[in-house]
């Protein structure tokens, strides 16, 4: 989530304790949906499986252990709090959430970093976990960070080491060696597809052989300050956050856009089966998740608006992206939206307060969201 968000947000990078402090001072949002789970910390991933059960990732609060870490800024060796306080939860209506697995949770610079996303394929949960940057040390010191894992009997089993892949290949060819495995989907060929939010690429992962390959690399976006990782050009990172696999082998990928997250600079890109990247929906803002609804449309979450005034309170939203690439707002007024999952009936589970406010995160359910009328997108300055 470095210049990759120089403030990157990403994600974990999006989720900053300082921003959390601000959020606590913001006016309370008006939530029109039903809050079905709350008390979460920096919830990142949500998924509805084929049985209709809801899976949620709670990033946890670190722990008592101190693990070695290099300060990415000063390069001095330090430690960060760590513990297995993150949680993978499974929930069905009318019951209490079930703890499926404890997840590694680290506190780095105010970010609560744990797993990113979860999907369930043939009954097996797969997760993207943590992030790593070369400046923090060549060897990952936090268990499973920078990996795709699967869950077996409550334990995390490494599937693919994306940190090793980034170190060996650095597909985006910037001088920043960093991975943040984040978005994940199952491709029609039975493999996994991962959007690396810090690597700025879309990766193909074979869950059997652990082979990793590049599907596409995303170009940088226009920026307002120099990127030290891109020859000091006025560019910012695209920060891919989620991928939707199509039957024909192509993909839709949502981009968050890097700091300063200028409204209108995010987009959904189409990636063809042979890796060609073309814009599909543009002029969007801080996209954190992307899903296909049962109505055939794409639905995305917008984290919020960061304007010249700074973060706009409760400016997160769920948007619908139509077949022609145009977009409309379905639900707005939400605080720091990080995830979305749709059920077979068109209901939507939306993660709010997905940033560093301990226990402030929640899952909100909107019944029949896909049937809700669309509203015009907010006007915004061109990036």
């Amino acid at each position: 989530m470095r210049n990759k968000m120089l403030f990157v947000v990403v994600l974990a990078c999006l989720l900053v304790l300082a921003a959390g402090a601000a959020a606590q001072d913001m006016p309370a949002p008006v939530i029109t949906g039903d809050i079905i789970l709350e008390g979460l910390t920096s919830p990142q991933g949500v998924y509805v499986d084929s049985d209709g059960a809801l899976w949620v990732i709670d990033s946890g609060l670190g722990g008592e252990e101190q693990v070695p870490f290099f300060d990415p800024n000063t390069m001095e060796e330090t430690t960060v709090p760590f513990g297995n306080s993150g949680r993978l939860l499974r929930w069905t209506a009318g019951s209490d959430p079930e703890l499926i697995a404890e997840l590694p949770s680290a506190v780095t610079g105010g970010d609560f970093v744990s797993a990113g996303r979860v999907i369930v394929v043939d009954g097996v949960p797969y997760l993207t976990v943590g992030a790593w940057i070369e400046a923090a040390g060549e060897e990952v010191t936090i268990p499973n960070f920078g990996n795709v894992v699967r869950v077996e009997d409550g334990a995390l089993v490494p599937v693919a080491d994306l940190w090793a892949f980034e170190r060996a290949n650095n597909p985006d060819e910037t001088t920043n060696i960093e991975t943040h495995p984040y978005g994940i989907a199952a491709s029609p060929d039975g493999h996994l597809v991962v959007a690396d939010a810090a690597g700025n690429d879309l990766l193909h992962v074979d869950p059997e052989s652990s082979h990793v390959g590049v599907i596409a690399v995303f170009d940088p976006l226009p920026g307002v300050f120099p990127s030290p990782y891109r020859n000091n050009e006025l560019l910012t990172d695209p920060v891919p956050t989620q991928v939707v696999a199509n039957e024909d082998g192509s993909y839709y990928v949502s981009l968050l856009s890097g700091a300063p997250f200028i409204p209108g600079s995010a987009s959904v890109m189409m990636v063809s089966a042979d890796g060609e990247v073309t814009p599909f929906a543009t002029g969007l803002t801080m996209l954190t998740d992307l899903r296909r609804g049962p109505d055939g449309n794409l639905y995305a979450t917008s984290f919020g608006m960061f304007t010249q005034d700074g973060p706009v309170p409760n400016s997160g939203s769920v948007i619908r992206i139509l077949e022609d690439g145009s977009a409309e707002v379905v639900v707005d007024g939400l605080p720091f939206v990080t995830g979305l999952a749709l059920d077979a009936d068109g209901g939507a589970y939306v993660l709010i307060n997905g940033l560093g406010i301990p226990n402030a995160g929640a899952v909100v359910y909107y019944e029949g969201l896909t049937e809700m009328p669309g509203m015009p997108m907010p006007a915004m300055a061109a990036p």
Partner: protein
Amino acid sequence: MKYLYIIIGFSAMALLASCGTIATRETPTPALDTALIARGIEVYRAQYCGSCHTLTAANTRGTFAPSHDGMGATAQARIASADYSGQATTVEDYIRESLLEPAVYFVPEYTITQHHMPPYGHLPTDDIDALVYLLANQ
């Protein structure tokens, strides 16, 4: 040292009073260059500084990074702090250094974060000057 100045001030006033001719010679405070302040705010907002910083004068509320309200006094304190690792000796130099070489010194509460300050050396000198003036006068 501050108390010494106060004592000297009182002494001088007492001396003038004893002469029966109190001269009201106030130390002139330089008038703010409002045009330069306005230009500084314009640059500040155009560069999206408010995404990360709060500056009431510019109507921004970012909190990823330290607040810029009261920046003049803050800069003075940082220069004097034991952990300061930069080269600046004045408020203006500190702010300029922070804009051009932000990696020289990280405010302690903001070290390990990866959301760090980018360098703004690409801006025209006039714009940097306006930002320095704006922030030094907060």
